[in-house]
């Protein structure tokens, strides 16, 4: 059968969208959470909430490192920022790496509960916790997403005629299509930018051929050349380390008004010690690691690395656009909003696949169709339930539980699996209409999110009744977002319930006529 161009595009949009839609929703939703990764991590470590922010006392941090790890091969000190009020020190010794949070002013270590916090969403977002294999799967999903975006523009040719149109009381197909178009079109520049830049970040993984040929498979050689890394050999002669505070101060003028992000020391205490001071990228698009390197024993300036060639600059600006370390809270909230719009676009698209096939009885009885219906619920509502339980687990698990951070993840994935099991059993054994399953899982997610601030009241001292009067908005924002999100989900569940009741009654004739 000869098909028209639009039909081909429609086919690609439908199937690329369906097969990768579940995965893409998870990637986009966790990516949206990652926008506030540091804020989530901070919220998940209530032990830090009473720490008063202060600039880093570099000498105190060095004293802590000397005390914890005098023999380490590498030290690093992360400076506090407006997003994280404490400083993190790390050291690596004999192949293991340890990190501790310290009070930026006194250098005293702070004991916090073990949690992956926002880092979990970040790891899941770009590699599904599967390392290199995950990066490839996410890359494939991103390619499918780009294809779906382009084909979507072709097939939804009415988007300009129907601009500003959302008809919630029209037929199910019509109103879901409207919602799908609106969430796609309005944030289309964002959707395309975020998908494309996500692929560009991993250019050397996804398109390694050029580098492989040019550097004979020696990728390390490329990185050494591109970023002029120096890896000094240990001299095995002790030499005192010069003051890191002075070196940091000396590096600052190179940032042209920027701030220092971190200080790294290779072979501290050795005659070949090397000190690298990095710039923070919070005041510009480019996510480029400006770096000034000093000799650790003499304090002499070794290299200044603050400019890049155009190709590398392009890549770092595109990564910067994706990682959104710039522009402060305003831009992060805008990204959060558009990320939610993107997630809603995928979710409505998945629902549309089902709704479009409703009423064709031969299909609705098929196992494949019911499978899609079930997985849809678990992939969307189930992920929301799992996310909420992850936040609950953080507050309810004892702070000193061994392997605590793994338990949090186990609870997240258990909750998600239970949702999948619930939806599949209901669907495959035909124990109820899809709307009921949607309603159940959305209500559970809504309840978990709405109750999260209350769990916080019971388990910590930094809850809404304290954080709002004291203006501790970094903490309060997480509770408030959970509350508002929960109310929104509850409202959706209620509306689904209403439409389930009306659809079980015979439809008014004008709705049937306009139904597609």
């Amino acid at each position: 059968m000869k098909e028209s161009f639009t039909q081909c595009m429609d086919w690609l949009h439908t199937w690329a969208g369906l097969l990768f839609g579940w995965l893409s929703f998870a990637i986009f939703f966790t990516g949206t959470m990652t926008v506030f990764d540091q804020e989530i991590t901070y919220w998940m470590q209530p032990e830090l909430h009473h720490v008063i922010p202060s600039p880093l006392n570099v000498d105190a941090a060095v004293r802590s490192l000397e005390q914890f790890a005098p023999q380490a091969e590498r030290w690093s000190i992360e400076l506090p920022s407006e997003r994280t009020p404490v400083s993190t020190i790390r050291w690596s010794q004999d192949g293991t790496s340890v990190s501790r949070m310290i009070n930026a002013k006194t250098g005293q270590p702070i004991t916090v509960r073990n949690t992956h916090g926002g880092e979990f969403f970040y790891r899941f977002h770009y590699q599904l916790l599967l390392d290199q294999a995950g990066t490839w799967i996410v890359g494939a999903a991103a390619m499918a997403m780009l294809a779906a975006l382009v084909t979507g523009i072709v097939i939804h040719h009415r988007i300009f005629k129907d601009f500003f149109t959302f008809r919630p009381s029209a037929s199910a197909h019509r109103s879901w299509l409207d919602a799908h178009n609106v969430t796609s079109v309005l944030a289309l520049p964002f959707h395309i930018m975020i998908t494309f830049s996500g692929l560009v970040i991993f250019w050397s993984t996804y398109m390694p051929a050029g580098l492989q040929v040019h550097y004979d498979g020696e990728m390390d050689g490329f990185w050494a050349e591109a970023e002029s890394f120096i890896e000094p050999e240990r001299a095995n002669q002790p030499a005192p380390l010069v003051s890191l505070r002075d070196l940091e101060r000396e590096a600052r003028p190179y940032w042209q008004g920027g701030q220092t992000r971190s200080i790294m020391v290779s072979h501290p205490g050795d005659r070949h010690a090397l000190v690298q001071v990095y710039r923070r990228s919070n005041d510009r698009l480019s996510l480029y690691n400006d770096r000034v390197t000093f000799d650790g024993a003499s304090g002499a300036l070794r290299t200044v690395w603050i400019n890049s060639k155009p190709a590398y600059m392009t890549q770092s600006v595109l990564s910067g656009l994706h990682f959104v370390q710039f522009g402060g809270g305003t831009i992060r909230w805008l990204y959060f909003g558009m990320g939610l719009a993107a997630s809603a676009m995928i979710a409505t698209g998945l629902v549309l696949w089902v709704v479009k096939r409703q009423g064709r009885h031969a299909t609705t009885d098929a196992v494949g169709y019911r499978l899609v219906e079930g997985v849809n619920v678990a992939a969307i509502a189930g992920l929301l339930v799992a996310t909420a339980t992850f936040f609950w687990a953080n507050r309810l698990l004892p702070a000193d539980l061994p392997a605590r951070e793994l338990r949090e993840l186990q609870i997240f994935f258990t909750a998600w699996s239970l949702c999948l099991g619930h939806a599949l059993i209901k669907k495959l054994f035909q124990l109820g209409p899809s709307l009921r399953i949607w309603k159940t899982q959305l209500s559970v997610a809504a309840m978990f999110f709405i109750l999260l601030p209350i769990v916080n009241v019971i388990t910590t001292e930094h809850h809404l009744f304290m954080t709002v009067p004291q203006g501790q908005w970094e903490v309060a924002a997480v509770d408030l977002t959970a509350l508002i999100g929960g109310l929104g989900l509850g409202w959706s569940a209620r509306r689904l319930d209403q439409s389930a009741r009306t659809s079980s009654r015979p439809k008014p004739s004008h709705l049937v006529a306009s139904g597609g």
Partner: protein
Amino acid sequence: MDILVFLLSYAGLFTLCLAMPKHFQVMLGKPYLPSSPSLLILKIVGWMILGLSFAMAVDTAGWSFGPIRWVGYLAIGGLTLIFGLPFAPRLILLSGILTCCGGPLAVLVFLLD
């Protein structure tokens, strides 16, 4: 002046929405249809307000951050408008008229300041 960028993007989208016959009727709630020249004028004014909001975004946040913020505010403003329209058309009409009048006035005040 981020709030101004947001209000102007909202006002611009609202005017463009008003320039489409079916939305015009929904918002005013009667089968009255304006002449096509006046719809064209609405369309031109809408694009001008959107242009103004872009200029404000670039003016307040610079060329690197301004356009990104503008796209963000445009998306949020548009989603508010579209999802609000079927539920509260009168409220959208009122807020649209207010931002259309207030937004450019605020820009004038901002420029004179």
